């Protein structure tokens, strides 16, 4: 996936683009994978006071390596506080305190509604996806939502098999009737570029392309007739610092994983416990 001369992958471009969307000091609700990479990259570069909240209950988490799950010990270790699950949803997310929520998706439609539940019929699905998790309430209550997913016709569909989390329903002011606290998805970051909802209709519009990508590619990879802005900007490629920081973060993570021989250590521990 390396894009040749520039020496960065499309995943890296996505992560860097997402990180740049985070202003310093925001309270950010983070999922695992690319969102966690992006949030931690932001914290390590331009947004040192970005406050990371994970749905496992960690507030002000400061992971030194990238967590593998939203509940890694790493997250609790250096957090400002750790609260039980009911509180993270009731006292934190539901109150509208969260500035930015990150979400991924298996499918989205032109109004940034999200499906993470099933492909095909709900009763006898072709593909059973993991389901809702924290997404419906993040989509409802975070002040804004950043969506990250790779551009493809399988993912960018004309009609969702299932609406797991709400973007703008069928557009315009439809969302406001739900009395949600948050404004909804303000940006969709893909491996090709960046889409933002039209201020009036709320239809996702391609406003920016990553270096090397074309509007034609994006149209091809979209299951509906994609709106393209009159003036499409070009994303700045990842700079030295961004790339270096991101890769260092990943290396630290891999090194930390290699170090641990969990099963063998556990085996020894159990043996020792038995002898006592």
């Amino acid at each position, binding site marked *: 996936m390396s894009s040749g001369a520039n020496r960065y992958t499309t995943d890296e471009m996505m992560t860097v683009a997402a990180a740049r969307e985070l202003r310093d000091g925001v309270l950010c609700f983070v999922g*695992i*994978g690319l969102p966690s990479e992006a949030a931690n990259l932001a914290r390590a570069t331009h947004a040192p006071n970005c406050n990371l909240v994970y*749905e*496992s*209950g960690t507030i002000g988490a400061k992971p030194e390596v990238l967590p*593998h*799950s*939203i*509940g*890694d*010990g790493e*997250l*609790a270790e250096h957090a400002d*506080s*750790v*609260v*039980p*699950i*009911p509180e993270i*949803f*009731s006292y934190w*997310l*539901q109150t509208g305190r969260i500035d930015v929520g990150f979400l991924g998706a298996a499918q989205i439609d032109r109004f940034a509604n999200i499906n993470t*539940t099933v492909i095909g019929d*709900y009763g*006898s*699905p*072709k*593909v*059973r996806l*993991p*389901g*809702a*998790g*924290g*997404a*419906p*309430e993040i989509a*409802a*209550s975070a002040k804004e939502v950043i969506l990250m997913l790779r551009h493809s016709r399988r993912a960018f569909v004309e009609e969702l098999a*299932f*609406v*797991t989390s*709400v973007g703008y*329903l069928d557009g315009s002011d439809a*969302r406001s009737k*739900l*009395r949600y*606290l948050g404004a909804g998805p303000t940006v969709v970051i893909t491996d090709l570029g960046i889409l933002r909802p039209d201020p009036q209709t709320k239809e996702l519009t391609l406003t920016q392309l990553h270096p090397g990508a074309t509007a034609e590619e994006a149209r091809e990879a979209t299951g509906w007739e994609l709106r393209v802005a009159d003036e499409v900007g070009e994303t700045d490629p990842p700079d030295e610092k961004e790339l270096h920081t991101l890769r260092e973060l990943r290396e630290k993570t891999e090194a930390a*994983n290699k170090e*641990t021989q*969990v*099963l*063998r250590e*556990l*085996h020894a*521990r*159990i043996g020792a*416990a*038995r002898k006592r």
Partner: protein
Amino acid sequence: MDGIVSLREAVAELVHDGDSVALEGFTHLIPSAAAHEIVRQELKDLTLIRMTPDLIYDQMIGMGCARGLVFSWGGNPGVGSLHRFRDAVENGWPHPLEIEEHSHAGMANRYVAGASNLPFAVLRGYVGTDLPKVTDTIAPVTCPFTREEFMAVPALHPDVGIIHAQQADRSGNVALWGITGIQKEVVLSARRSIVTVEELVEEFEPRPHQVVLPSVAVGAIAVVPGGAHPSYAHGYYPRDNAFYEAWDPIGRDRDAFRGWMERHVLGTEDFAEYIESLVQEGVGRR
């Protein structure tokens, strides 16, 4: 059944065919040993409840223990699908699985309502999504003061609540710390409870973000060191990320899965033997 017993006794005594059983632990302290004991005792027709069904639910579902699943997110965190869960939902193998799905916030509220002995809880959510169309246990309720409408979810009262914790003391109090998830509410909402712990201690030391469940709230306690593997026990051992990755190909294939479960779970007496057997075979082998 109260006090300190073997896990085998606890499961034999407290979990019955047809029960609703919640094994909780949000990425941290997942009660794997207890799930394996349920598989070993070949319990059937269980309604399994859990916010994040993961490997242990994949295993119980694949081994035919479950009739139903109440959940909010069913995946292998950081890796991908739970293939046994998918096979049950997509293909009815080993038999069909009734599912009742919520969001995390909905499930958390259901446990809180259960622990509070209220039949329902109220939250901001669900409206506009397709979840209320497929899940009966979501219904509107109106605020008697503001007349705003919200969604309500019914309380969970599992027949058995099962968690893993770091420590118990000799009086039967239980201490857990780090990410403590929904464990307190699971034990308090359940009719019966089993807690597996890393060790017995004379006295708890203060720990960051510690929850202490007093003995009067706790049913059976079994000491099972390592009992949360491949998840982790804060202060004891880290998450076995390699195991989560190794599970993907094992869970993907019906025969590989069945063989693996027979060798390591059905073919062992307890969790210590299971760990021994994993170490001897090497984790990655199907």
